[in-house]
């Protein structure tokens, strides 16, 4: 059972009910659950959309797109059914927050999904969980069944005369399926190959109908925004970055865990105070601020507020909220290799630059790290990653290229230290396996 942590700086909104047995529907209701959806049933859809817009809630899946805006793109009239699609594929290395939401507060996701449905006029929602989260799927399915039993879902929700159905779905191991259009393909029983855009999901999505796709945390946040009011929620964060978010602190910190902190919380403080600093008395070497696809930051770059805009300005991304702390006993080349190994394994293979690029990067880095590097490799690795960037079919290619470029650029010296037959300065017993295929 994942350990829950807490810190005085936390502002518990989404994580409010963690550890309180709220997977049980009665307990959820006792803790104020399903009030927001009732509130929304008494409001117009425009009101809901506006409320979410003005809360400055931004997508927690990675790109940080304004949730209210996304909802407003859905056409009012549509010949095909509209859908809400909840992205619980959580696979970006460094990210484990949705895990906790489904474990401790599945009804919040259900409630948020219904509200999203009311906002855009959708009559059904799909909640897609990654295949590895089987035990969470069972919890979620129980919760959905309970909600049906209470009349919170079905033909006549809360006796309002409105219909809303929720269908759960499991993946079977594929990071790329977290990409919104690949997710739709997967949900339609196909290979997780992303779709050509435009058209965007809001216009042509799941089964060809207009679709809102949101991350599970985003959706779980929605009832809280409605409950506390948009202004109050927005207030917690920084301009254009409303509220709080779940930061998954991992790696070489003393107290790793998922902490809910206000948007804009200082990264350095997050590591040294919330996380208790670098473990084992070691020094900080680098931080990956938003999941493995975000460019690494050097220690001198971490005195920044953790919101989408500030991290963007610092040359990286807030991403999915996975803060990975790396100490000075770690080999950056090995870390880069393991990172690219992941993208090579997860590339769907559809487009040339990503399919071939990730493979070549992995091979080159593996050889390089094994002590067979050539001086020209360093530039070649960078050249290769730069030539993938912005040219792939979906953002996975960028997700592989961006961190690679940052590792080479920011830690070139470490790469050079591997040259001339020098063994990895951080070599431990046994080299990395990277046997994942």
């Amino acid at each position, binding site marked *: 059972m994942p350990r829950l942590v807490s810190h005085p700086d936390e502002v518990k909104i989404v994580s409010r009910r963690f550890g309180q047995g709220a997977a049980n529907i009665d307990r959820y209701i006792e803790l104020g659950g399903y009030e927001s959806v009732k509130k929304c049933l008494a409001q117009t859809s425009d009101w809901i959309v506006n409320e979410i817009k003005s809360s400055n809630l931004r997508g927690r899946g990675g790109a940080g797109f304004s949730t209210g805006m996304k909802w407003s793109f859905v056409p009012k009239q549509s010949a095909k059914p509209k859908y809400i699609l909840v992205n619980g594929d959580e696979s970006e290395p460094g990210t484990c927050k949705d895990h906790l939401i489904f474990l401790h507060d599945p009804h919040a996701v259900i409630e948020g999904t219904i509200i999203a449905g009311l906002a855009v006029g959708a009559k059904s929602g799909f909640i897609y969980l990654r295949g590895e989260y089987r035990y969470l799927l069972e919890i979620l399915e129980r919760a959905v069944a309970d909600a049906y039993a209470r009349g919170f879902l079905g033909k006549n929700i809360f006796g309002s005369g409105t219909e809303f159905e929720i269908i759960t779905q499991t993946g079977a191991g*594929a990071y*790329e399926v977290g990409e919104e259009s690949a997710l739709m393909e997967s949900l339609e029983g196909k*290979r*997780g190959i992303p779709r*050509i855009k435009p058209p965007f999901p809001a216009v042509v999505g799941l089964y060809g109908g207009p679709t809102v796709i949101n991350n599970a945390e985003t959706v779980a946040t929605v009832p809280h925004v409605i409950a506390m009011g948009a202004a109050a929620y927005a207030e917690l964060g920084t301009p254009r970055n409303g509220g709080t978010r779940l930061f998954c602190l991992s790696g070489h910190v003393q107290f790793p865990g998922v902490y809910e902190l206000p948007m804009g919380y200082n990264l350095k403080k997050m590591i040294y105070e919330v996380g208790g600093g670098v473990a084992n008395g070691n020094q900080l070497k680098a931080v990956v601020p938003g999941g493995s696809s975000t460019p690494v930051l050097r220690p001198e770059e971490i005195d920044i507020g953790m919101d989408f805009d500030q991290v963007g300005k610092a040359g990286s991304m807030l991403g999915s909220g996975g803060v990975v702390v790396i100490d000075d006993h770690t080999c950056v080349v090995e870390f880069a290799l393991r990172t690219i190994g992941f993208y*090579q*394994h*997860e*590339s*769907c*293979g*559809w*487009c*040339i*630059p990503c*399919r*071939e*690029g*990730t*493979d*070549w990067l992995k*091979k*080159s880095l593996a*050889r390089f790290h094994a002590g067979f590097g050539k001086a020209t490799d360093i530039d*070649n690795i960078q*050249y*290769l990653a730069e*030539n*993938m960037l*912005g*040219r*792939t*079919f979906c953002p996975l290619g960028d997700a592989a290229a961006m961190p690679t470029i940052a590792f080479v650029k920011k830690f070139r010296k470490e790469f050079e230290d591997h040259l001339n037959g020098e063994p990895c300065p951080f070599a431990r017993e046994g080299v990395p396996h990277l046997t994942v*295929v």
Partner: protein
Amino acid sequence: MPDVTFTVDGKKLTAPAGTLLIEACRKAGIEIPSFCYYPGLSLQAACRMCLVRQEKVPKLQTACTTTVAEGQIFTTESPEITQARKAMTELLLGNHPLDCPVCDAGGECELQDMTFKYGAGESLYAETKQHRNEQQWSPAVFYDRPRCILCYRCVRVCGEGMDVWALGVENRGVHSVIVPNVPGENGGGDQLDCEECGMCIDICPVGALTSGSYRYKTRPWEMNHVSTVCTHCADGCKVTLGVRQSNNGSEIVRGDNRDKSGMNGDFLCAKGRFGFDFVNHPERLTTPLLRNAAGELEPATWEDALRVAGARLKEVRDSRGGATIGVIGSNRTTNEENYLLQKFARTVLATNNIDHERTTDYAAFACALAGHPGKTAGLREIPSAPAILLVGGNPTDEHPFLAWQLRTNVRLNKARLYIANSRPIKLERQAKLTQELPPGGYWRLAAFLDAGQSDFSKAILAEESLIVIFGEEFRGPAVESLIAWGLKRANVRFAYLGDHANSHGAADMGLFPDLLPGYVPVTAPGPFAEYPNLPAAPGKTLPQMLDVANGGLGALLVVGANPVTRREVDLAALQNTFLIVQDLFLTETAALAHVVFPAASLYEKSGTVTNTFGDLQMVRKASDRAGAKPDFEILVRLAGAMGEEVKKLVPFGRGAMTADLGQSRGAQAGEADRHAVWLEANGLEPRLSPFDPFAVLDEIERLVPGYKLDRMNLMTGNDVRTEVAPTQPATASAIGGEDLIVPAHDTLFTSSTLGRYCSGLNEIEAHQTREHAEAAAD
């Protein structure tokens, strides 16, 4: 869509809004590279070669998915774009073997071309390549995985284009591979169960998919490429034959679609692509054969064979009369040969006993349409017709190209396809509505439609314009009734499905005992009154000629046909008949002959053929078979051997018909040289050789109704329309001869007698049967 104006590389272009940028550019002569984009197939945007810059858009965009709109500004060539494309090529080459010199696609490889163009000459990456073994998926298709660049063209052409869906993609990422549909030992696909059309091979931009019949035989630049017309079914696809010199003439080593100029564009089926190897079959006849005193056939010289055959024909004609001589023509020889054959029969042999193996009732079709010009539809029109009614037939098996056209139209234009048939056919998957008919119930269809009771008939009646395609189940009255139904309505046009490369031409050229070319009755010969000695009475039909009860003929000339097998002829009928056969092989019929002439195949001669839709195309001589001669030449020489004046038969040289000037009988007595006058009026030069089939083509155009040819188009290699409609309604007995019609029912891999000598097709056929036997055993 309204036209919009946008800018590409500083040039203002106009195209309908929503056109794909890559298409709009290609039309304007701006070439944007691509691997995965393929016109008519679904979009992939996977290869990223077509990246261009659009003003005000942060990232490079794929031209293959960008649609044009008013005022957009694009750059398609710049250092940035060149670098992007170069990098894409470098990335591909990373895992791609760099052994172009031994690759089957060397010289015809799009990856090679791109590398050349974008100069990814330096190998930046020195990692080991993903190696995988080559696989043979079927007799026709080999797959060399490391060469595959995953453009998914093969998967799409097989699925979307052919509706076969035999190819897929397995695994993901760099482990992705194209797989066929029959799994092997290790789970992954390694055998194909499909129509073996070879479209995947043709569409492959690199050397990943190669053809069992061609691979590693030669280099593309060592072949001559000749574009001609397929000899198999009656759709008339253009096929490009790759020909290499060999010790007995030349050898065809490949059939493909390199020249996409034909109406079949990309398409070829297994027969078109792999069915050329009969030309090199070891049993091919290369010398004339004469039956000796011992009653055995033995090789003879052309002189001897011609002398014997000519003398005997002359003798029978002169002693017993032309009515005791019979002539059977071919569905695979050219129009010129067929025309010449009937003219030879009628004017030299003085007989109307001429017929051919009728695979469909073109005569009834022509007569029903008499007096209604413009009511037939060409095969080119099928992919854009808004609505099509297919009654009978099974195009998927018997008219693969028509099936492709129909699918394309439904897929790209949402055309409405209606199918009425007495059995289920695969094309129903594309049909909007289907109607089951009782076998033999075709003649009631017109009444059924008019009744307007069913959804099917209501939908048909609601169509403003319709093309009706008849299958070979239709005969005489059923043809007439449906055509009559269609003629009452404004926009209904017709086509009729026959079986072989020139079945329609054979009928059009008058291989009938009672109909002259253009379905002109022999009893009212019209323009053919100029034929000297034209017998007035209709002759015998093919079964009559071979009927024992008829007492047998004095002589029978069979050109490119095998009636003995096809008709299960009682051999007694031929006991006292002097049989002359012109053919490629010693068929069952040829084996009975007294004289056998080795004939050239359709791939070894020039002329024209008319497909079942009435589209006429030129065939071009691709290869040579030492010893064999075109049927045209054999006939001319035979006439010579009979002591005839060849000019009467083939209007060549100056004054072709002036010989008739001094003649006292016949319609043309005393007239000037009509042919020369016509040539001059049409700006044509007289042909100089008696062996030039175009001399006869000129005469065909001059005399045959419905064969007014667009010469310009024809000479540039295009198909041109002919019409079957005779100017006057014919009442010839050919119409009533329903039993005379015997459809060949060839499948995707058979081609009647000729098919037996297509080793490649036979191998494929055996592979298919084996597979199905295995499946059945499971």
